[in-house]
């Protein structure tokens, strides 16, 4: 079995969860090749080799600096034809999801999307994925060749750097024209940790209502000490306490950190759909009956305006930060 792994980049910088897809592909065995598209990304191609890809296809072109569905789909189809890979694997980021769907639809093959686990059974790929917003797990297979799958961020360990080198095959960008033109890019503040990539998330909910600005300031301070991303419940977003991009849950982001600290979040079904697969859940809530305590591993019943600063103090002292 030969697997081609898409290594996503953004203005020359690798998107970290791509290395998780590479790590998963290596664990499946067989030949593993990487495809790096972007600009400038020669160093990312070298890194893909250093992390264990046996061969790296590289399309490095100024027109590819930002992801474009039309252009990248044409590139992937050309490389799949050259590589004759049996499997095409990408990380289930927004771009990875869109790319897998476009390539799959164009080639007339299905996509095993957003997998938590991938295995090979009788030479064919079997993906395990959640449906019904995390309430049902199912095994998925697709007909035909190539078999296309996307892997949920943080579902696998990144391929470690083993210091190998791999041949880099430089390909010309596919002949295609882009229809979508990007006219402005507003980036997240530097140092802001992506929710979907975060190993720790500190989230705030309706419990901040009596002073939302102070509440999220306290949450940010704790997040900073822990090296965590900040999240929020739908109630906090709908009330205008914090922008939508921080929303964890059914109509927001699905996350699976090692540690999720829910501050003043009741734990409605739609929130659990977004964070229920976190490894360790901590609940801080005034209401001892809040449903969040039924999924939490640890909890403190109390006012987040007192407990969160106390956690920040304790973490600073213990972690020497």
């Amino acid at each position, binding site marked *: 079995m030969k697997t081609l792994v898409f290594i996503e980049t953004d203005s020359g910088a690798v998107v970290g969860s791509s290395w998780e897809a590479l790590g998963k592909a290596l664990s499946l065995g067989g030949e593993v090749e990487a495809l790096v598209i972007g600009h400038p990304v020669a160093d990312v191609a070298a890194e893909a080799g250093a992390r264990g890809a046996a061969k790296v296809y590289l399309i490095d072109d100024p027109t590819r600096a930002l992801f474009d569905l039309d252009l990248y789909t044409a590139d992937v189809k050309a490389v799949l034809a050259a590589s004759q890979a049996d499997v095409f694997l990408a990380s289930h980021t927004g771009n990875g999801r869109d790319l897998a769907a476009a390539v*799959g639809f164009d080639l007339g093959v299905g996509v095993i*999307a957003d997998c938590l686990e991938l295995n090979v059974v009788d030479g064919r790929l079997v993906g395990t994925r959640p*449906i019904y917003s995390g309430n049902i797990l199912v095994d998925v297979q697709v007909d035909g060749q190539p078999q296309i799958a996307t892997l949920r961020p943080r579902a696998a360990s990144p391929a470690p750097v083993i210091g190998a080198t791999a041949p880099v095959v430089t390909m010309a960008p596919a002949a295609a024209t882009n229809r*979508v033109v990007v006219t402005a*890019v*507003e980036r997240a503040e530097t140092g802001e940790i992506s929710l979907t990539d975060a190993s*720790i998330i500190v989230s705030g909910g309706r419990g901040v209502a009596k002073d939302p600005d102070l509440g999220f300031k306290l949450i940010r301070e704790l997040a900073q000490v822990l090296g965590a991303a900040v999240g929020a419940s739908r109630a906090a977003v709908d009330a205008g306490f914090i922008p939508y991009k921080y929303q964890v849950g059914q109509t927001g982001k699905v996350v699976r950190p090692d540690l999720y600290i829910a501050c003043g979040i009741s734990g409605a079904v739609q929130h659990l759909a977004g964070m229920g697969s976190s490894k360790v859940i901590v609940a801080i809530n005034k209401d001892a009956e809040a449903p969040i305590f039924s999924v*939490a*591993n640890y*909890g403190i019943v109390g006012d987040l305006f007192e407990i969160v600063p106390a956690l920040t103090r304790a973490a600073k002292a213990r972690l020497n930060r």
Partner: protein
Amino acid sequence: MRYLICIKQTPDTAELPKVKPEEAASGRLSVQLVVNPWDEHALEGGIRMMEQFGGEAGAITVGGEDAIERLRSALAMGCKDATLIQDTTADAWGVAILLAAAVRKMGNITYVITGQMTVDGNSGTLPVALGRALGWPVLTGVARVVAADETRITVERIVGQARHTVTAPAPAVLAVVKEIGEPRYPTFINIRKAARMAIPVWTPADLGVQVPAAKVHMSHFRKPPAREAKVVLFNGTPDEAAQALIDTLLAEKVL
């Protein structure tokens, strides 16, 4: 301009945990069904485009006859018309092919609008498949429509942690996220209109399409392993409880 808003019937959010594996496998659910929550935002987004940029918005769904009730919800929110494509066999690519055939049959659609994903299938791959089936550009993660006319659209998209402003030629497919707008409540007048309005039902044959065999095969439907039910609570003053919690998290090696 004509906007076509694609919706899907899914379980009500509060009912999702009650879906049984055998129901998920058969597709015959015993839970309360509603308009997919992401598609409620698509309805709001499409109706706002109609109000801001002119034209008419219609709704469409692929499903069984019971899905007509969901189309009535779309009409009650303010859609001008609604269409049911009657089919319960198509997988995601099949649905894309059916919707694309309906768009072609209608002939005058400027923008197709969908929710970014569904709360049942969760893959978020349909909008792109539909765009590819039509040969139209696809804009996913759309948080705001800045401008739109017969020839061109400008939107703000959420791309990872960033926000991109992009333009694309019409016709195009847009997949929207919640930030596009909170779904409005139906008005009394619209509810009454919706109850009376005739909703055309098209079969795949009416569209000249044969539903392709499913390309994705699902098996071994099961409940995910239950979380450890017992929560350990830390008591005492805020500082005492916080220190005990941090020490426990350090011992668990999650800090």
